[in-house]
């Protein structure tokens, strides 16, 4: 990085990383440096009067940099570093701040249906627009036709619009339009007490509810300089790995199903159901929603709970192994998944795409190891990385991650630390800022927050891993046939709600 952040004075009470207030020139220099591949963008968000950017340039610790907005503008990062483009469009929609020099100024979350402009900024009344009035990028060429899909899709899935431009069967371009399930979560969180805010954050994306609560709790604990007790930290990770396994089982089955291979879908559906049923038995909620709280966890794992979980692992492991072998020995299925939807290493690196999307294309990053937090920081575990970057590789990453989760769970459940499962998270001082990154099943998930002096949330932002994966789906489908889109889409399985917030 051309800017040596460590030479600046950090803002007080921002933990665990430093936050620096920079000027426009430094902000722009950081953008240029990101554009040259000298670091990863971890997040970019606004608040009244300022914009913030989280970044990491290994081996230096990650940092947050902040810039005061002048006359409603700030220098565009997207101009240098395309992963910032959608984030800047979201800042424009929510706060009304223009990213000067931005390559794309179209609205992103604002579909003209709120009756408001910049609802978290100037909050001016605005005329309603036709929701279909959106300038898709034009595609020219002989014999091209467009296929509009959504927002209401054919399956039981979230809403979003996909605009395909196809040449016969081959996709020439896919353009996504998202924001349909934008619920105004950044605005809702402001001024909430931490318990209420935790409930909202847990519902940013239901399939990642454990990871979201985990990251929120860690960010809040960082801001208040308290730490959850060791037993709670392990129980949190037990839930996080159960969530990862349940989602991966579901995704592996669903990918096979999208190649019309129903048998493996049925088996994986049963595995997923078993994980949820035992989670319900042990924690009292199938998705373990609201189980992780600031300061610890809601429910302890009793001795019979640990036994039930270990029995579940013993039950699933051989059965899953059999299903994986079946997948790997079915040429008609492999024919659909191999060499389909390839994403290049260059793209996942530039987008700092987390989870199976990055690791299937050679990006060796896992927040559990590279931004380690307890209890992961206390041991070593296998992180699978593949190079092929296709649907098959993304499926195999999930298979290997389930193997890692099984091993981690066995270790923790055999020797849960003693002690309490929750401490008072009120902390020494109530004002402060905290940031946390947790490895959700999709990849790294960031929560940043600032507490007011009365302990309420002054500002909280959740950045779902999907922000840096959705754009790559557009690249993955290019040159593939339309009929392979469900496979590609499922192999990514990005969150609509998490992106739309």
């Amino acid at each position: 990085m051309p800017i040596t952040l460590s030479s600046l004075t950090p803002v007080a009470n921002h933990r665990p990383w430093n936050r620096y207030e920079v000027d426009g020139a430094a902000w722009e220099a950081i953008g240029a440096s990101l554009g040259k591949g000298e670091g990863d963008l971890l997040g970019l968000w606004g608040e009244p009067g300022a914009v913030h950017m989280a970044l990491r340039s290994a081996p230096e610790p990650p940092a947050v940099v902040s810039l005061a907005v002048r006359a409603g503008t700030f220098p565009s990062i997207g101009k240098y570093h395309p992963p910032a483009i959608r984030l800047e469009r979201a800042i424009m929609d929510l706060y009304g701040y223009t990213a000067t020099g931005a390559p794309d100024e179209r609205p992103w979350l604002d579909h003209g249906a709120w009756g408001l402009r910049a609802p978290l900024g100037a909050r001016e009344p605005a005329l309603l627009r036709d929701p279909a009035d959106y300038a898709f990028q034009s595609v020219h060429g002989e014999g091209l036709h467009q296929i509009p899909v959504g927002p209401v899709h054919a399956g039981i899935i979230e809403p979003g619009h996909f605009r395909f431009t196809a040449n016969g069967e081959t996709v020439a371009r896919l353009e996504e339009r998202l924001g349909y399930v934008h619920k105004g979560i950044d605005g809702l969180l402001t001024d909430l007490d931490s318990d209420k805010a935790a409930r909202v954050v847990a519902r940013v994306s239901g399939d990642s509810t454990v990871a979201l609560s985990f990251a929120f709790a860690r960010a809040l604990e960082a801001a208040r300089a308290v730490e959850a007790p060791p037993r709670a930290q392990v129980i949190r990770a037990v839930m996080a790995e159960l969530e990862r396994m349940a989602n991966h089982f579901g995704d592996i089955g669903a990918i096979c199903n999208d190649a019309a291979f129903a048998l493996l879908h049925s088996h994986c559906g049963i595995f997923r159901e078993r994980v949820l049923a035992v989670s319900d038995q042990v924690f009292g909620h199938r998705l373990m929603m609201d189980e992780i709280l600031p300061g610890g966890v809601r429910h302890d794992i009793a001795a019979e709970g640990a036994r039930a979980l270990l029995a579940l692992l013993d039950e699933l492991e051989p059965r899953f192994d059999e299903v994986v072998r079946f997948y790997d020995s079915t040429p008609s299925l492999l024919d659909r998944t191999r060499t389909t939807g390839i994403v290049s290493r260059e793209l996942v690196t530039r987008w700092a795409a987390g989870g199976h999307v990055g690791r299937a294309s050679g990006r060796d990053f896992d927040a559990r190891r590279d931004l380690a937090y307890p209890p992961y920081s206390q041991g070593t575990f296998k992180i699978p990385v593949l190079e092929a970057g296709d649907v098959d590789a993304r499926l195999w990453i999930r298979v290997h991650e389930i193997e890692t989760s099984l091993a981690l769970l066995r270790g923790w459940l055999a020797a849960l630390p003693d002690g309490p499962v929750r401490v008072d998270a009120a902390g020494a001082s109530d004002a402060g800022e905290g940031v946390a990154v947790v490895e959700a099943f999709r990849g790294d998930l960031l929560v940043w927050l600032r507490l007011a002096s009365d302990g309420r949330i002054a500002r909280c932002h959740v950045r779902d891993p999907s922000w840096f994966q959705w754009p790559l789906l557009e690249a993955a489908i290019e040159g593939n046939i339309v009929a392979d889109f469900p496979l590609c889409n499922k192999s990514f399985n990005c969150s609509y709600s998490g992106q739309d917030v």
Partner: protein
Amino acid sequence: MRTLLLKSLFARSATIAAPAAGEGALAEVGRALEQRVRRLFGRSIAIREVDAGSCNGCELEIHALNNAVYDVERFGIRFVASPRHADILLVTGPVTHNMKVALERTYAATPDPKWVVAVGDCAAGCGVFEGSYAVVGKVEQVIPVDLHIRGCPPRPIDLLRGLIALMDQATARV
């Protein structure tokens, strides 16, 4: 590979026994249905799921209805890809402003007679997202609702109880 197929053939069914129709749900849909339409469906109901703003938690549990454990198709209930083929709209989420038009159009595209089931605490009462500039509110504020299935998210067994109640009422002999 063959062993898995053979095992699948001879294994005991993973499907659980059918739950009784939910009593509260029975009372609610009983009011909603006219006798005239009860004979129309012949124990077969087609459902179109619409996410109108959900966090996707409800979708996960609605999905589970199709797995081998709950196997909703044995009750003649199946999920269809188009509202044109649907008898029931299963709507989740607090309705966002950005999804309001799409929900209204989906409802309009569903042929009569039709029912709307609002699934989850958000759909039934707006949940934790109440008061946001981006949210219209509960489903009832946008389209008429015949049955509410609460929960955050509702368990598949609760979804099944509600749907069986709807099914019993819709297809009961007159």
